[in-house]
């Protein structure tokens, strides 16, 4: 470029391209193409990732179910015959299992479905191991049902569900000790007879987690509740402290070494790996202060400390955006500095603070690593009780449930894990859209 003359005579005309010009032009095209390729590659990866997650996970919202009538025989479920709940609890799920097996065999016979060549245990294995417990719970909740015949919807076993979703085939069934091709033939005949159908599965959103053996019953209820508790606590702890800190740093702090130290600290804390906060939580909140392990409270404390820098940075930007003329006017009519801030600056900065807070909470919702260290990855199948006591109960959270299920051996849990991600992403989308709408609605140019 700078030494054109040294490389030979100048081109005769500006309108005809010489070889050098062509070379430079093609270099330009190439460079432009690299840029486009980089953007295309990142967006394609994003789409590919979301597509794999969705195609794996959507099926978690559908579930194969068996619909059949069951006569709740009184002599089996209520041997005393007085419908006393306390006495009926003595009948364990084993008793209910027997009842289910009889009813299922009877229903198969009534519909004329051929079960030749299959043992009774192989036939009942098609029903989820969770079904008996479910039935028992609903009978105990309403003892007057005993003696009547009710229509029930039972979860089919995980392998049967997988067969409907194409995860289990006759080839895999050959090698599988939980299901055989002959059982799958029976499933086909049940499907034709309309005894078995796949439908929308609310229990994926409401059920607690289930053991390794019954992926079909595992749900997100406890995890969603746990994440909700976490978010409530994080918002309660983070917002007041974060806003107070940013007011001080923006409006009152003198320029000295101490405030410089705080500023450097905040920007450095924002870059500390999240797992370090997990170690902090384990050492200080659990070992030193003795808070209960795997409780929402400890999780929220850890996540609050992580989210605080983000919220402080966003709130400070919002406070800084309020023009000085507002402050001058308030001070001019005799308000104190504190009144100026709380009566005028803060309300004007509130939408910006709120937007920043929602975005900070959205990041906090997806945090996993620190929660693993404080024990929230433990298997929790009880709903935590209502707040405030529930904040101390063992809980789990959505992203941790994703990780927990991904670690299980049964491939059916990968589907559950992807389904959990869909729920998690749906929450994130809602929060981000809310932040964008708030910003649009209240954005003000001074």
């Amino acid at each position, binding site marked *: 470029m*700078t030494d054109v003359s040294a490389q030979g005579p100048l081109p005769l005309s500006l309108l005809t391209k010489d070889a050098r010009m062509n070379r*430079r032009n093609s270099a330009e095209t190439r460079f432009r193409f690299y840029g486009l390729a980089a953007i295309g590659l990142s967006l394609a990866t994003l789409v590919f990732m979301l597509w794999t997650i969705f195609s794996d996970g959507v099926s978690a919202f559908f579930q194969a179910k068996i619909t059949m009538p069951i006569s709740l025989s009184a002599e089996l479920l209520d041997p005393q015959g007085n419908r006393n709940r306390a006495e009926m609890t003595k009948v364990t799920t084993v008793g209910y299992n027997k009842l289910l097996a009889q009813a299922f065999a009877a229903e198969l016979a009534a519909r004329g479905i051929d079960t030749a060549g299959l043992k009774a245990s192989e036939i009942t294995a098609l029903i989820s191991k969770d079904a008996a417990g479910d039935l028992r719970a609903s009978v105990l909740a309403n003892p007057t049902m005993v003696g009547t015949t009710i229509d029930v919807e039972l979860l089919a076993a995980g392998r049967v569900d997988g067969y409907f979703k194409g995860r289990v085939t006759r080839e895999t069934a050959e090698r599988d000790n939980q299901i055989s091709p002959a059982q799958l033939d029976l499933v086909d005949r049940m499907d034709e007879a309309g005894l078995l159908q796949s439908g929308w599965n609310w229990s994926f959103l409401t059920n607690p987690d289930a053991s390794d053996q019954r992926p079909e019953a595992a749900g997100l209820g406890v995890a969603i509740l746990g994440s909700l508790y976490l978010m409530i606590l994080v918002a309660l702890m983070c917002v007041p402290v974060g806003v107070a800190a940013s007011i001080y740093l923006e409006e009152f702090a003198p320029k000295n070494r101490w405030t410089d130290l705080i500023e450097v600290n905040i920007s450095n804390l924002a870059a500390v790996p999240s797992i370090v906060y997990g170690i902090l939580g384990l050492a200080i909140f659990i070992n030193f202060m003795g808070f209960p392990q795997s409780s929402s409270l400890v999780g929220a404390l850890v996540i609050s400390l992580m989210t605080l820098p983000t919220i402080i940075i966003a709130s400070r930007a919002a406070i800084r955006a309020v023009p000085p003329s507002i402050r001058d006017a308030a001070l001019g009519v005799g308000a104190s500095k504190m009144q100026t801030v709380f009566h005028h600056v803060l309300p004007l900065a509130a939408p910006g603070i709120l937007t920043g807070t929602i975005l900070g909470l959205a990041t906090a919702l997806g945090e996993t690593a620190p929660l693993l260290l404080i024990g929230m990855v433990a298997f929790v199948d009880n709903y935590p009780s209502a707040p405030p006591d529930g904040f101390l109960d063992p809980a789990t959270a959505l992203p941790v449930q994703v990780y927990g299920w991904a670690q299980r051996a049964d491939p059916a849990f990968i589907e559950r894990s992807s389904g959990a991600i869909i729920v998690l992403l749906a929450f994130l989308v809602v929060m981000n859209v809310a932040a964008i709408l708030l910003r649009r609605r209240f954005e003000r140019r001074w």
Partner: protein
Amino acid sequence: MRSLRRGVALARDVSPEVQAVATDYRGLAATGFVARGIVVLLAALLGFAYAVRATAPDFRARNRVEAVVLGVLMAASTIAILTTVGIVWSMLSETFNFFSVYPASDFFFGLTWSPNFRGGSDLGFLPLLWGTLYISLIAMIVAVPVGLFAAIYLAEYASPKTRAWVKPLIEVIAGIPTVVFGLFALVTVGPLLRDYFAQPLGLGNSGSSVMNAGIVIGILNIPFISSLADDIINAVPQAMRDGSYGLGATKSETVKQVILPAALPGIVGAVLLAASRAIGETMIVTMGAGAAAKLDLNPFEAMTTMTVKIVGQLTGDTDFAAPETLVAFALGMTLFVITLGLNVLALYVVRRYREQYE
């Protein structure tokens, strides 16, 4: 004990000692309740007396209240400092405990990592450091060119309309939780790399590998680098571009010979920050890199990192006297020092070499 003091009927027999302690406890609790009431009433009366005494025409109540509020605000702003102190203190004390039961030189220079909860473990840190750095290197090889080219295209070539659409879309990647990337690595990228690269090339048949974790962390870091670099490139003054175009340079020549040199310190800073994030990343490596600590060059081999081992040693039943548990704190401390060092270095580079444009 807890149920007794709540007065819950217990099914099993309770030994007399426990019964006595529980009765005692309930007695104490009742006394405490009464005492608390008295203390609260006294405090209220004292406060009231103070308020009556202090109320006078020349009492500046507003100033006093505001001094208290200011104190609260100041206290809130020191939480950041307390957090740092908490991090350093919690890790430092446990790290000292660790080095009192396990020699520091064996930790920092040991070449094998084989923890054994029955004692006699080798807790060498070098294999973990190697895995961490190898994975971060691959992540940077993916993220830096892609992020940088994306930023250059967005800043220099894209029309405002394209930019308004594409920039937020790329930043969506940064908003997705890392556990989602972890599952993507575990279920999709890992088997893909194994079936189409590792096995045909005869480099092993492990689904989790350095390559797997590195590539996925790289993808995660693309938006980080691209948005930082985009800001930096936009900060280069337009006059420099115009000067370059005026001399007859094409756009790409301008970018390569004028803009990038001017933006270099900022870009180096962005890369250092991204490297620090890659080193501290946990979920992707936990789910995609494997758990075997190895010193190996084969990128399709499963290796492990410091963060994976922190999670591994601290989840499940832990005994806080055993070196196998305490080592996690030493690892955390090392990780904290490395990432903090990278951050400080990044800020220093940006400040020291920033060209001043007026």
